[in-house]
């Protein structure tokens, strides 16, 4: 296959970027999208030009590193996959493909197609955990969990933190990402004790970092490579509301002892 690529090139976070057009020829339809990018980069290096920088690592759809906006869609035209799982047989000989980085204010471009997604880590640090230390834990089967809840929790936990939801949203909202983590824990008995604090802390951090609001367009769910359901956002809103109404967060108590 012979293809024309229009790729966003940007030297670093402070410089202005622009589209540059490249031609790649003789691409096998069986190669993956990133292998096609490898071939382009190999040819650029041989010519002494700077190859296109992009994030990628596991190349099997689970690490969440790859993050290309292809022909106006995060991770390209196929449903339920990441960029690294996209194959060239999805395109036609002679096609022009436009490749951009995620575009969202909380995800600044570092170089070419690489963006900084530290904001997601910060949201998790704000409360995306159950506060248990290592050791001294009761037996794993001490608390039975209804299978249906465990499955729903797993559905939410499948999020890979790639940021496609934010890139797809016209408001750059991170609600799907945040709600997936909130839901994973809200559905499990282990997550209940801190549920109210968690949802409030994570939402506050999300707002602080400059992610936008949810206006229910559903683009996040449609583009999510792990098909995380938008119903998680409804669950998070419910959790958030009941947290606001019902709970008071106690101050940390001083330790006892003589």
């Amino acid at each position, binding site marked *: 296959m012979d293809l024309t690529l229009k790729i966003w090139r940007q*030297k670093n976070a402070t410089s202005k970027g622009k589209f540059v057009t490249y031609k790649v020829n003789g691409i*096998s339809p*069986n*190669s993956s999208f990133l*292998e096609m990018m*490898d071939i382009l980069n190999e040819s*650029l*290096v041989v010519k*002494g*030009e*700077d*190859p296109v*920088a992009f*994030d990628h*690592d*596991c*190349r*099997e*759809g*689970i*690490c*969440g*590193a790859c993050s290309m906006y292809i022909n106006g869609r995060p991770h390209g035209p196929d449903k339920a996959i990441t960029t690294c*799982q996209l*194959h060239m*047989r999805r395109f036609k000989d002679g096609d022009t493909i436009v490749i951009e980085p995620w575009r969202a204010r909380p995800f600044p471009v*570092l*170089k070419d197609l690489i963006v*900084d997604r*530290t904001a*997601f*880590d910060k949201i*998790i*640090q*704000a409360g995306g*955990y*159950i506060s*248990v*230390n*290592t*050791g001294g*834990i*009761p*037996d*794993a*089967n001490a608390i*039975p*969990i209804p*299978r249906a809840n*465990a*499955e729903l*929790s*797993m559905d939410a*936990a499948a999020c*890979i*933190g790639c940021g496609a939801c934010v890139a797809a949203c016209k408001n750059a909202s991170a609600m799907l990402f945040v709600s997936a983590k909130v839901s994973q*824990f809200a559905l*499990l008995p*282990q*997550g209940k004790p801190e549920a109210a604090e968690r949802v409030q802390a994570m939402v506050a951090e999300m707002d602080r970092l400059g992610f936008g609001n949810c206006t229910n367009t559903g683009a996040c769910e449609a583009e999510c490579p792990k098909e995380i359901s938008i119903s998680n956002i409804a669950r998070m809103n419910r959790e958030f509301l009941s947290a606001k109404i019902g709970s008071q967060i106690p101050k940390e108590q001083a330790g006892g002892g003589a």
Partner: protein
Amino acid sequence: MTELNSKIPKGQLAEKWTNYKAHTNLVNPANKRRLDVIVVGTGLAGASAAASLAELGFKVKNFCYQDSPRRAHSIAAQGGINAAKNYQNDGDSVYRLFYDTIKGGDYRAREANVYRLAEVSNAIIDQCVAQGVPFAREYGGLLDNRSFGGAQVSRTFYARGQTGQQLLLGAYSALSRQVKKGNVELYTRHEMLDVVLVEGRARGIIVRDMVTGAIERYAAHAVVLATGGYGNVFFLSTNAMGSNATAIWKAFKRGAFFGNPSFTQIHPTCIPVHGDFQSKLTLMSESLRNDGRIWVPKNKEDAEKIRQGKLQPTQIKEEDRDYYLERRYPAFGNLVPRDVASRAAKERCDAGYGVGDTGLAVYLDFSDAINRLGKNVIEARYGNLFQMYEKIVDENPYETPMMIYPAVHYTMGGLWVDYELMTTIPGLYAIGEANFSDHGANRLGASALMQGLADGYFVLPYTIQNYLSDQIRVPKFSTDLPEFKQTEEEAADRLRKLMEVKGKQTVDSFHKRLGHIMWEYVGMGRNEAGLKKAIVEIAKLREEFWKDVKITGGMNEINPELEKAGRVADFLELGELMARDALIRNESCGGHFREEYQTPEGEALRDDQNLMYVAAWEFTGDNTEPRLNKEALDYEFVEVKQRNYK
């Protein structure tokens, strides 16, 4: 030869770890916050260690080359994690898990380490459940288990086909909690370039900020390497693109011994290679072997027609199929350990019975299971794997058998560590896949996750205190010490040298050529002539690399070509050590198969008389051969047998 002290505690096997914990030195809480620990890597081992040490009160600095700790390659583990819970009442126990691991490792692992691993396995499951890891459950709400390659009991816990992801996110959440509390400083997009020794002890690291290119120094009272395996020395492997050996290789060159470098695991169920442009191989979980049956055509003519596309596998009659694992190993059938399954596939393909375009593939067939259990059951069990396969190969595995072939997956070898997980450099630890310790010559399925988390949550947090208790009077280190300055200069010089070669060939082209040599001569089947050839070829390639590699861009910016070049330069040295190690091991054991040493039936033939030791290699200089040290393996509690899966 250096006397290697493995520091195995005295006493009965089942009491060693309990005794160790009862008598080891601890650090009091007030002193803990004055002690710094560097942890490199944020996979299962690194994240769990960093979180657990920080919870105890140590000040931790945690580094990773990825943009987030959550992307470490542990995330990609699919199948599951073993533990000796015996929830299924099928006869499992700590001893049985220990025994299976020792036997699976073909009697080349330390008894005491492996027993401890089995012993702490149960606490891992408790820990993960408390963290909110959504393991698979039965309808009654209790945890579900499945049996996994090479095991006769169901002891594997799993979260769909994403167990590694869920366990890593659990450890990542614990780590994130400590970051928030200020006990862990996180450095993402930072790659370790070297370890700094002060008066013979590990006291810090040199890293490159991969965004700005700045070379930075970090000091600590102890350094923990949790940087994973080195399977990418083969170019094509199931490892992530960035997985590399630089941290452990630099430690080796600073004096840490390297244990059993040639012990590599070739995983039997990967999607076959399909072209020259291929960048990595994709693993299909071994759990597929629970319901899939492996076969090739019985007749060479059929195999040839299939390769030419003239015949479809579904057209081959039952009696014309050779279910070679079931035929050769009736007791274990399709569930034989990974090394046995991989070699058997290679044997059939080499003999001319392979399928696919290249003839380097065998079938994994689910038609029997679908007929027996129904398509919906198979879909519930393996749906995501089937979908992944279809995306890559463009064939529907519900309708036509999958094609699989072995690929490099895991390295049992790694930095030599004692019972406390400390390398031969005082204060330098290696945990998880980065060390050599628990899997002997072959790792059992679902044991990598177990080992990574055992080391990080339950072993290192105890053992490191035995060292740090001695360090409480040592003030925080300044990175102004001459040792830091010198190591930093050496690291920067090396990068500069790479940039200045200004040759004609790309980094990837060298990596591919190295991978080809490794796969051909240091891969699934090895022999003396081939290994000697590999040593010469790798040395030649290395020389060519330093004369003709071409790296674009600059040092002070994001530069993936420079990152790759540094890693490949190290692989070009490590590959040679692997070949040397395979060459002195005049036996076949586990994943190490020397063609000269096999039984008349083609099974691995060990030499327990002469080779029942850990080969611990010592760096002696860039232009001299490494020195071989031996740690004798003493089997006190287990009777050593020939592995038999028939």
